[in-house]
């Protein structure tokens, strides 16, 4: 089991900060289109220079997700992927020498059902470095926060455009690893550009916290990654990647992974 000292997410952000670099965080739906494909995508992304990847645990009722990620969850569950399969996949990635920091994006419905302490221990044992529980806001998070820390996991919380300024600072202070800044009032999904207020809000927040701030929701191209990373410590891209997987789904796994990887390379370009 990992301890906070060798947590890959903390280490990665420390290194990025020292070199003045930014993070691109791709998001994958575990088990979409199948669990082997997820493993292949992780390897491909790492080879292209990705240092942190978010792994979404498919959930039957994801209320913060737009149609793209929602459909990928439904298909993954329909194909029978389980929490156990995802943990095994992550463990196999680690056993194969995988060194990216992995952040689990997982609904509190799943966490609670498995037992918060037991589940977070299992995540850490499988090689995850962080958990993001998008439906566990600050006021409900205290227990999970200390259990995550005890398991050696960073607990990442989200800030929304609707979050009042003082609460933003409070959330950033309580996050470990990074703070997830939601760029738009709404659900996940590709958008052409981000509201200018978001950029200003991220710049403002960074004055009040040392916790890295990464921006997600709606980022769909290299240009937006560049804009976001001018103020933020990293950019998170989800739906645009899932959409590329869907487009390449009929190809053999290695070709599919390479095709999606090419898109990730495009996204990486402005920050490498």
């Amino acid at each position: 089991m990992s301890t906070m000292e060798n947590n890959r997410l903390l280490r990665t952000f420390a290194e990025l900060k020292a070199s003045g670099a930014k993070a691109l965080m791709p998001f994958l739906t575990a088990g979409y289109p199948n669990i082997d494909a997820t493993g292949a995508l992780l390897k491909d992304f790492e080879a292209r220079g990705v240092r942190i990847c978010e792994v979404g645990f498919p959930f039957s009722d994801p209320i913060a997700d737009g149609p793209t990620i929602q459909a990928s969850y439904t298909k993954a569950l329909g194909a029978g992927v389980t929490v156990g399969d995802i943990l095994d996949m992550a463990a196999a990635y680690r056993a194969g020498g995988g060194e990216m920091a992995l952040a689990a994006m997982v609904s509190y419905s799943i966490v609670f059902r498995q037992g918060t302490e037991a589940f977070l221990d299992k995540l850490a044992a499988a090689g995850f470095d962080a958990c993001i529980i998008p439906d566990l806001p600050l006021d409900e998070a205290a227990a999970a926060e200390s259990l995550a820390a005890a398991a050696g996991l960073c607990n990442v919380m989200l800030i929304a455009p609707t979050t009042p300024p003082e609460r933003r600072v409070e959330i950033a202070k309580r996050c470990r690893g990074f703070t997830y800044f939601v760029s738009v009032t709404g659900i996940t999904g590709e958008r052409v550009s981000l509201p200018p207020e978001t950029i200003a809000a991220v710049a403002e927040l960074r004055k009040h916290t040392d916790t890295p701030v990464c921006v997600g929701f709606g980022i769909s191209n290299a240009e937006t990654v560049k804009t976001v990373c001018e103020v933020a410590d990293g950019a998170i891209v989800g739906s645009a990647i899932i959409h590329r997987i869907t487009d390449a789904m009929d190809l053999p796994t290695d070709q599919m992974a390479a095709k999606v990887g090419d898109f990730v390379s495009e996204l990486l370009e402005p920050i490498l």
Partner: protein
Amino acid sequence: MADDNNTPTAGGAGYFGQFGGQFVPETLVAALRQLDREFNAAMADESFLAELARCNRDIGGRPSELYFCKRLTERLGGAKIYLKREDMNHTGAHKINNTLGQALLCLRMGKKRVIAETGAGQHGVATATAAAVFGLECSVYMGTEDIRRQALNVFRMKLLGAEVVPVTSGQCTLKDACNEALREWMSSVEGTHYILGSVTGPHPFPTIVREFQSVIGREAREQMLAAENRLPDVIVACVGGGSNAAGIFAPMIEDAQVAMVGVEAGGRSMNLGDHAAPLCVGQPGVLHGSLSYVLQDEDGQTADVHSISAGLDYPGVGPQHSYWKETGRVRYTSCSDDEAMDALVELSRTEGIIPALESSHAVAEAMKLAAKMDPDKIVLINLSGRGDKDCNEIQEILARREGGGK
């Protein structure tokens, strides 16, 4: 109104024992806090309460009658059976009590648009009605399976000026409509109020909906005292999310002599996927923003559910019901599709009242109980809605029964 069972945590989220809470994306937290503040301010504001009472009377048609079922009582030869006639409300069910209250809250918050989820369509119709009365824009999210089962209510909503948004995810029923309404609220939260239809969802909804529905129990308590000079021995109500049950139970929850029974949808069988009875056979879990009993698989994925009644076809239940189950204050049981249909036919023929399929679950259980009780005892049923909306569905089911037996 304060409730001892609703102890706020440091963060302000409402809990009933270990149940309840506010498990939502951060985007919605500010709106839920605003709603909580406005609700508390409104309930302490005499002019708001007077306006609510006026709306309940002039628009909702309150008070609803307390009705003694003379022929049904004689036929069963046991306890006296009374109905609280929520089926006589404007729009045909108890749902209007909540939508009028929440529409007034929406106006107080200066929001111009409301959204709602609906299963049977009763909450959707009641929301569309309130929106029409107060000149609010209205969108109702409804699963395509329910759109098929409840075509008349879909037409009514449209006629009332609401947009009906078909939901095609999951099983295309109430749970999926809730997801879609919450997603829509994520994007429009600053100018839109979500009129949640049951005592479910994140705090403060379970408390708000219970308070607006408690008019049922407050009236029933007075009416029982006037009619019999005492309270009923048992109150029976159907439980999907549990708003009509919470509304009739809450005002008498401190009256220890009154037993209470909540009836969930037993569906085709008690195998997972064949029913909608989380309190009877589920376990605590998180769904749609609160911790309560829920039907899930071992990973925490929401299970499929089934009920003859679209309004009970839901894998979760309001957190206060979980609390009442755990404390033993209310007994929860279930009734099968067939038993509900039999009760529907029975009440229609003996009393001239066609109950909604949802409410028929309560009628079925009450008939079983009354038959075994002494004639000096009283059973009160919350007849939460009328069956007009179900007539097409009832016709098909009865035809199938005649064709191939039950």
